[in-house]
């Protein structure tokens, strides 16, 4: 149960000599600031200021700020979102509001009628993008959203949120390519499965017909 007592080893990490003059520390410090002051005129690592509106520091493509919705094709009709409400439930600050669109018979159209995100509440956690099973919500890097209109300007509806797949590909090339490849594979798999199903059905039908024919032939034969 006992662990050995910690072994201590004496050493004096600030390698100061035994005798120091008062004021040396101050002068050393002043030397540091002087070096920084002078070098700031010609060394890049001593002048790190990026003059924001004109210059911009590179921002990683992984940077996430607020979510956006992806649509396939050219317009909102291709919105991938199926209004399944998983993100709405998982969103830690509950800033997503989704209403499922239904036709006149009350049947689900698998698309959102309302999809609002209150970016004045959103905490940029990215959990919505993580849990979405339909690859439809991703995190945007856009951050210049300051506004004087607190109520109108910060409640994003689905038109404001929608972005094309191209936008996604431009923003996060790696992620978008991966998603596109996976979706394509799934699509192909689905198509293949469908084709296989059709083929199988066809085969079965043919076999059935064949059987029926045989039986008929048998019947006629008998």
């Amino acid at each position: 149960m006992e662990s050995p007592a910690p072994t201590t080893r004496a050493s004096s990490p600030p390698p100061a000599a035994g005798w120091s003059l008062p004021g040396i520390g101050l002068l050393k410090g002043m030397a540091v600031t002087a070096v920084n002051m002078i070098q700031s005129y010609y060394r890049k690592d001593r002048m790190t200021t990026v003059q924001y509106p004109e210059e911009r520091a590179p921002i990683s493509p992984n940077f996430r700020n607020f979510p956006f919705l992806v649509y396939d094709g050219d317009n909102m009709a291709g919105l991938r979102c199926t209004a399944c409400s998983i993100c709405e439930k998982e969103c830690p600050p509950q800033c997503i509001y989704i209403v499922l669109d239904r036709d006149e018979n009350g049947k689900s159209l698998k698309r959102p009628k309302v999809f609002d995100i209150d970016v004045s509440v959103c905490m940029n956690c990215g959990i919505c993008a993580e849990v979405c099973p339909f690859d439809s919500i991703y995190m945007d890097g856009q951050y210049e959203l300051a506004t004087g209109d607190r109520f109108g300007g910060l409640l994003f509806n689905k038109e404001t949120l929608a972005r094309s797949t191209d936008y996604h590909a431009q923003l996060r090339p790696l992620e978008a390519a991966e998603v596109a490849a996976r979706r394509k594979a799934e699509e192909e798999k689905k198509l293949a499965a469908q084709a296989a199903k059709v083929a199988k059905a066809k085969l079965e039908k043919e076999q059935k017909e064949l059987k029926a024919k045989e039986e008929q032939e048998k019947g006629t034969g008998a």
Partner: protein
Amino acid sequence: MISNPFMSPAAAPASVPELDEDQLLHVSLGPQHPSTHGVFRMNVVLDGETVVSLKPVFGYLHRNHEKIAEGVTFLSSMPFTDRLDYICPLTNNWAYAQAVEKLAGIEVPERAEYMRVITAELTRLINHTAFVGFFLGDMGAWGTALMYAFREREKILDLFEELTGARMMSNFMRFGGCRNDLPAGWAAKASTLVNEFPRFLDELENLIIGNEVLIARTQNVGALPKEALINGGITGPMLRAAGVAYDIRKAEPYGIYDRFKFRIPLGTTGDCYDRMMIRFLELRESLAILRQALDQLPEGQFINPKSKIRNFKAPVGEAYARIEGPKGELGFYLISDGSTNPFRYRIRPPSFINLTLLEDMCLGLDLADVVIILGSVDIVLGEVDR
């Protein structure tokens, strides 16, 4: 009642010296005060400029984290932990993930453990350099040290942004691993940073540790005997500055800390100067850990494939897990009743409990010392009030 030998004179009211009430000046430092590191408040009674009583007032940033966490799923609390100690979100992530892993018995793949160590130690670099900057700022040094600290911090934040997608609020760790793998070339960039960091440390040490004004301000200020510190629940660099060799990374190695060779720096007196120096020395040790971890970084999975993201439920039970955060012992105490939400979610915040002995440290000193002592405790209000 059993007497506590570590009780402060103020807690035992009989021993307060008789003072003429008219001579005393009641000052409320905070909640909006330049050097209370946020919205901390202290009701100070001064005799001249000497502190005769100091009562901290908390709660100005009480954001009900624990209550909110009981109402959301286990995973949804992860981004909230970022906002506890907002200077070092990744260690908070780790502490919480570790508690849930303990609660649910989830294994963590080796690569993920390495990623956790690397991010946690980078976080320690951020915290300790920023501490030094803020500490100097409390002494009225016009932010030069802070500027240098933040200059280096920005480099680490760029790494974090690439890895986790956010500068501060990383939300990176998941139960059983991390959210995503290291991007291509990230480890090389981190290595470069780690190799260049000592140069900056030399510069910062030249600027600070020999400064006679700083020495005069910090030496023999705020020291307490180590037994009192342990009894008061003080942890982290503050405890080690007094010479107690207690670092959870060594005492109870979590993650894979037992694989690395590193040392725990210890002070002797435990005054504010030692507290600062211990942080300088810990920075060097963190760099040693980082070098080893980046060298040994194995290939493999970054998250346990068995762990679920959606609809995660922990088995009935409770768990208390803690890590050595940059500010001290950060613990999470979780009770699960088997549902998707924790039944009880409690944080053991190092900043909050390290303030227990604030009054003891400040009594009889100057108002200016109070500011330094508070700075040397290294608090973050998000964690103090939660």
